[in-house]
């Protein structure tokens, strides 16, 4: 009897916790999307009426559109570069024993631990010292640094799971090293590469702190643009821009899910 009661109480509590977690996860995005359809001139929840005027405004706002363009370009190019660098680093760490291997690994993963504010400050000083302050290259390099740990971590995991005998079998079947990599290693690492790519892209695309530190005159990333806009205006245009970003993200994840299945990703 008593244990039945405990089971029931725990069951109800579990349901409540789960419900709360889901609500907390979804509501910020949901509120922004709902608010973006407002007819009013100020951002408010719940919105009154329905209109697409803020979407029109967003698409015709050159600061927001150029920021979206900057952020996309930065994130896409940086993701490609960081995937190459990170996979190479993961290869070295997972496959070879060399002096200072664990030091190298800690170093590569350290941006995860160091607060981004500290990293940003340090990078700002460093880039000024090497003459790259207020340059797109500096911003780009900064983004690579914070994206790298996600890629390296994911790729080390992928490499450790990959059966080395498969590569040996390919070599035994007369495949030269590059062919082994292209025909065997790379296809089998594809799920890890996509996971790493998604992590890296999101890290770059959503970053505010580092991008503010390494801001380049004339080019602003979208998160920084939204952040500075909200500081002095409460126009629903930011809600519309955010909703566009959310929509793009969902579409990308759906495509990936269609292609390989999200359950294989994480």
């Amino acid at each position, binding site marked *: 009897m008593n244990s039945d009661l405990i089971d029931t109480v725990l069951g109800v509590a579990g349901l409540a916790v789960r419900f709360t977690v889901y609500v907390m996860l979804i509501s910020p995005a949901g509120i922004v999307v709902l608010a973006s359809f407002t007819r009013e001139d100020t951002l408010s929840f719940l919105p009154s009426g329905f209109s697409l005027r803020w979407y029109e405004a967003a698409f015709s706002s050159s600061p927001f559109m150029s920021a979206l363009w900057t952020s996309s370009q930065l994130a896409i190019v940086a993701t490609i570069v960081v995937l190459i660098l990170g996979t190479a680093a993961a290869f070295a760490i997972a496959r070879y024993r060399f002096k200072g291997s664990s030091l190298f690994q800690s170093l590569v993963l350290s941006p995860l631990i160091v607060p981004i504010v500290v990293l940003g400050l340090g990078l700002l000083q460093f880039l000024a010292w090497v003459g790259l302050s207020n340059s797109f290259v500096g911003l780009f390099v900064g983004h690579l640094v914070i994206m790298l740990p996600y890629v390296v971590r994911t790729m080390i995991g992928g490499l450790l799971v990959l059966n080395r005998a*498969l590569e*040996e*079998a390919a*070599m*035994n*079947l007369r*495949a030269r090293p590059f*062919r082994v990599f292209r025909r065997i290693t790379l296809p089998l690492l594809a799920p890890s590469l996509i996971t790493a790519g998604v992590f890296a892209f999101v890290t770059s695309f959503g970053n505010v702190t580092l991008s503010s530190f390494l801001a380049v005159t004339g080019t602003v990333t979208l998160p920084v643009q939204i952040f500075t806009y909200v500081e002095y205006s409460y126009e629903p245009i930011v809600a519309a821009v955010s909703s566009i970003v959310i929509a793009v993200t969902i579409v990308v994840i759906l495509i990936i899910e269609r292609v390989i299945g999200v359950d294989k990703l994480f």
Partner: protein
Amino acid sequence: MSVVSLKNISKMYGATAAVESVSLDVEKGELLCLLGPSGCGKTTTLRMVAGFVKPTSGTVEIEGKEVTDLAPYRRDTGMVFQSYALFPHMTVAQNIAFGLENLGKPPKLREQRVQEMLELIELAHLSRRYPAELSGGQQQRVALARALAMNPAVLLLDEPFSNLDAQLRVRLREDLRSLLKRIQITTLFVTHDQEEALMFADRIMVMRNGGVEQVGTPSEIYETPATRFVAEFIGWCSIFDGMVNGQGEFSVGDSIRLPVDAGPGPATVIVRPEHVKPVEIPGQAHAFEARVTSSNYHGSLCRLRLDVSGQEVLMEAHYPHGRAPKVNERIAISINSKGVRRLPG
């Protein structure tokens, strides 16, 4: 000319030798088995032939050509891995075609050869399946077809039966042996299973701690083991450490006396369990009184451990149903003098 020739190869890992001065010649069409317990160096030896491990010293020759320093993809070997290592993202046909592609064979020839191989392993109907959709036995056959497709000089098998259940193992062993004999391919085969080696091989090289204990045909290895290790590792046997007197009689303990073909002095002899028989009346030639210390039922025959005045004697015998002696029972046994072998050295 031998197809594979190992000359004094050693592999050191730091100060420990995984393989120590092993020499071996494998003849054309021969099925040679590297047998030994785990860590004896048999797999390292096989990997040195394939080129995945570079010997610290010594040379490896394949078809008379030295390949010691050649990369694996420049050697004419076909290997079946313990895990089969089929490419999970390729179909059965694509797996088999992979080696032919790398050799630069034209598509037409490739297709033809893949078809031949599929027929050889009787899996033509599964050519479009992925490895994950095959049973263990089917995967093993695909791995074999993939290795054979390139028509290599030597086939290397690394414990190919260890991932299969016992029932299937025995049947596939017979099938594989007759297939390899039919196509007359030279084969190097690694196993830790002595029964498998005895059944499968033309010749066996028994290894221990990186060195060679004995090389010989299965019956040589079984009947006349060169060392105590080989005697104990292959099959089941009684081992006696005793003395030979001037009349060529070996004695151990108070009661065991056996004729041996050896000069006087200390000697070790072995007796295989099938040379020990139960007898009705004690007092017969080479008959002894024995106490049963353990009795294991194995279907058609019974395996007994016996105590003959302090010496352990192993016996395999057929008993009518329910008549097998029980533990601590006293029985009479005789040892066939033809089955008594003196270990050299």
